[in-house]
């Protein structure tokens, strides 16, 4: 990726002509100082390779990140418990509300008979 400063093609083209350089009298192409820097200012190749290998090892050792759709869903999980409790409560209420009030009336002879039989015994129901 290292580019020659005197040959900045691509993104650097155009903006690096003339005033782009710090000293217009010293074009880096002909500047012995720039040439010297480019000749010597390098890391040993093995250091780079080792650093890259250690980075890759570290990345591979990272715990697997949750997938994005799970990550985005996780913020809804906190509402799961209250929502389920609310749904259960609503369901129970609907169940009781759906029972017709007339069937619970004490005036129902069938109900009275069954109550009498279970509480007072068969003799009471016969009296009824």
């Amino acid at each position, binding site marked *: *990726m*290292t*580019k*020659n*400063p005197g040959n*900045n093609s691509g*993104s*650097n083209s155009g*903006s*690096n002509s003339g*005033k*782009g*350089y*710090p*000293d217009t009298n010293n074009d*880096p192409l002909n500047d*012995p*100082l*720039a040439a*010297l*820097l*480019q000749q*010597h*200012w*390098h*890391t*040993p*190749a*093995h*250091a*780079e390779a080792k*650093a*890259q290998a*250690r*980075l*890759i090892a*570290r*990345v591979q050792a990272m715990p697997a*990140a949750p*997938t*994005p759709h799970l990550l985005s869903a996780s913020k809804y999980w906190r509402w799961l418990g209250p929502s389920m409790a609310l749904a259960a409560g609503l369901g129970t209420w609907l169940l009781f509300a759906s029972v017709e009030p007339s069937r619970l009336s004490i005036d129902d002879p069938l109900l009275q008979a069954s109550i009498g039989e279970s509480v007072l015994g068969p003799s009471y129901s016969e009296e009824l």
Partner: protein
Amino acid sequence: LKTQTPDQSEAHLVARIAAQDASAFALLIEQHHGWAYRLAWRICGQQRDAEDIVQEAFLKLWTKAAHFDSSRGQFKSWFARIITNQALDGRRQLKPIETLEAAYDIADSAPTPEQCAQHQDVHRALATLPARQRAALALFYMDGFTMVEVAALLETNEKAVESLLSRGRAALRALWSKTPEMRLQR
């Protein structure tokens, strides 16, 4: 077939990283680790610190990839800014620069004793410069960023970058003029 420019493919890779795609992350590390490590090392002057800086920067990329906006510039500029900011962190600048570890990789180039001495002189001279001057020199001369880009990376203006580069060059010239190997070359 659709062809992608490097910028488009990098933007695509970063988008995949934002979706936590580990294979895209590995590919981006392979493509950009080299220059990122060299930039960090040139600014901070320590191999271990350079490694830490680059690791932190890549891990930051893993978590903050969604913040990258390809319409605002290239990935390299965006990532170089992260590296530069971390390398210029005040806490790191308290450490002295290691000059001896920057010796030639003998197996690769088999330099002459004179080249070795010259190499060490260059590194010794660079070690005396303030970190921001080294950063400006590294970004401009070694990574090929323009003055405008260097100014943006260092969060300053072009005049200030010009001044950093001029002072850096003057300091290096002064130091090198004192060393016999450099006098011979000049």
